[in-house]
């Protein structure tokens, strides 16, 4: 709770400083809108500009991509623990592929899939699968040997050992993997949307920001950034926080 209070004070001070900067006209107003302008743009965005629809569209894409990425990351990482040959190959693949920024793959994806949802999801999957796999594999590798031997002693082998011992024992790493994956996927998605613009099936929040910039509506750009921040906070505190509370914290695996 003390942490929350500190953070609240920080945010309030930041907003105050922002407003003071604005009042003294340190930067041109067109570049630096007031808190009031941003709030207005935020509300107007939802009421008139369909910001909600853009947001939901982005979220739907990111969840689809994350789902695929998470499933694949788990499947491949589990295989890597079971098979040594696959481990060598996959470990190498992760190292190489993790180096390639999602946006750099975009032209290729467009050539392959065209300008559509598949391409966006492909980039999202790419941004999440490698960092997640790395975290999962690192987690699996650092599982206390005594858990693994206990599991084997009681008859666990192969995929059951992965599911019932490796996975819960490394859950903390899995969660950090999810967090990193989520952040990377979100970034990847926004960049792709900006470059892409609309597709036949809809447009996302990245496109919204891009449009606002084209119209030199700085407050609108900030309003969209605010949406991204709010979603980030909800995911971080509500989703990941809740998962942590009911798993690793309850199990005494983290302080």
């Amino acid at each position, binding site marked *: 709770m003390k942490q929350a209070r500190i953070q609240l004070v920080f945010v309030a001070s930041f907003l105050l400083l922002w407003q003071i900067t604005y009042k003294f006209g340190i930067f041109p107003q067109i570049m630096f809108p007031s808190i009031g302008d941003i709030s207005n743009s935020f509300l107007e965005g939802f009421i008139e500009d369909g910001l909600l629809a853009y947001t939901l569209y982005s979220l739907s894409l990111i969840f689809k991509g994350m789902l695929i990425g998470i499933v694949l990351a788990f499947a491949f990482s589990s295989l890597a623990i079971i098979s040594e040959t696959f481990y060598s190959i996959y470990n190498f693949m992760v190292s190489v592929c993790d180096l390639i920024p999602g946006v750099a793959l975009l032209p290729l994806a467009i050539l392959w899939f065209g300008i559509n949802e598949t391409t966006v999801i492909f980039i999202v999957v790419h941004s999440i699968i490698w960092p997640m796999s790395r975290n999962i594999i690192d987690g699996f590798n650092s599982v206390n040997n005594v*858990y693994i*031997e206990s599991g084997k002693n*009681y*008859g666990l082998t192969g995929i*059951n050992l992965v599911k019932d011992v490796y996975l819960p*024992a490394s*859950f903390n790493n899995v969660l950090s993997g999810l967090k990193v994956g989520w952040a990377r996927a979100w970034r990847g998605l926004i960049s792709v949307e900006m470059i892409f613009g609309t597709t036949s099936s809809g447009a996302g929040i990245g496109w919204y920001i891009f449009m606002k910039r084209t119209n030199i509506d700085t407050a609108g750009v900030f309003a969209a950034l605010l949406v991204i921040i709010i979603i980030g906070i909800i995911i971080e505190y509500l989703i990941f926080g809740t998962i942590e509370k009911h798993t690793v914290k309850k199990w*005494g695996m983290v302080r």
Partner: protein
Amino acid sequence: MDKILKVKNLTKNYKDGADSVNILENLNIDMPENQFLCVLGPSGCGKTTLIRCIAGFEDYDGVVEVSGKETKGPGIDRIMVFQNFDQLFPWKTVEDNIKYPLKINGTKDKEELSKLAKEYLELVGLAGSEKKYPHQLSGGMKQRVSIARGLAVKPKIILMDEPFASLDAITRRNLQRELLKIKEKENVTVVFITHNIQEAMTLGDRLIVLSKSGEIKLDIHNTLQAPINPATEGYGELWKKLSDNLEGNSDLY
């Protein structure tokens, strides 16, 4: 007499370097059912290595037979209780830690599982701790749960590698006493590793002392009358005999 455990010509070399030596060489041990065997030996002589080979966690040359069948790798017929307090799954409650091995080995009935968990927790003196998580238990309590978990699957042999070595003297005595009670109540065959002479004498029906080089130096039956304590007749002589057979015994008490 039928042997439940036979270790035949067990040779173990970790092969971790060009100059790696045999830790155990042509070791032979036979154990009848319901025997409580304590293995003593100086630090580094290969006690853990021996019990890990029996458990199936290591590769070795030779044969380990349980009830006449050669073992391959770890199995539910030989349950290991480690020295490490953290052998329980921290993501499961005490109760679920006991139920889980039963579940994956065929006991599906919920009531039956709860009954068994309760029964074995009572046996180790931990009734009422069902819903706790391992991190909420003391080291001694964790070891009790680990023993309960092992007993519950009714293995042919329980393997214990200094399970009480990291406990304080009083808790250690208490757990020894509990283990003696369990030994009387249940039919268990135990291989118990220790480097504590008192512990071996109190618990073991049979005592083996390994030499520094991993050979059997002494293999005797414990003929002292229970309850065994320093006042028991013959305690001093046996203590001396064991102690004389342990080389470099400065760290023993």
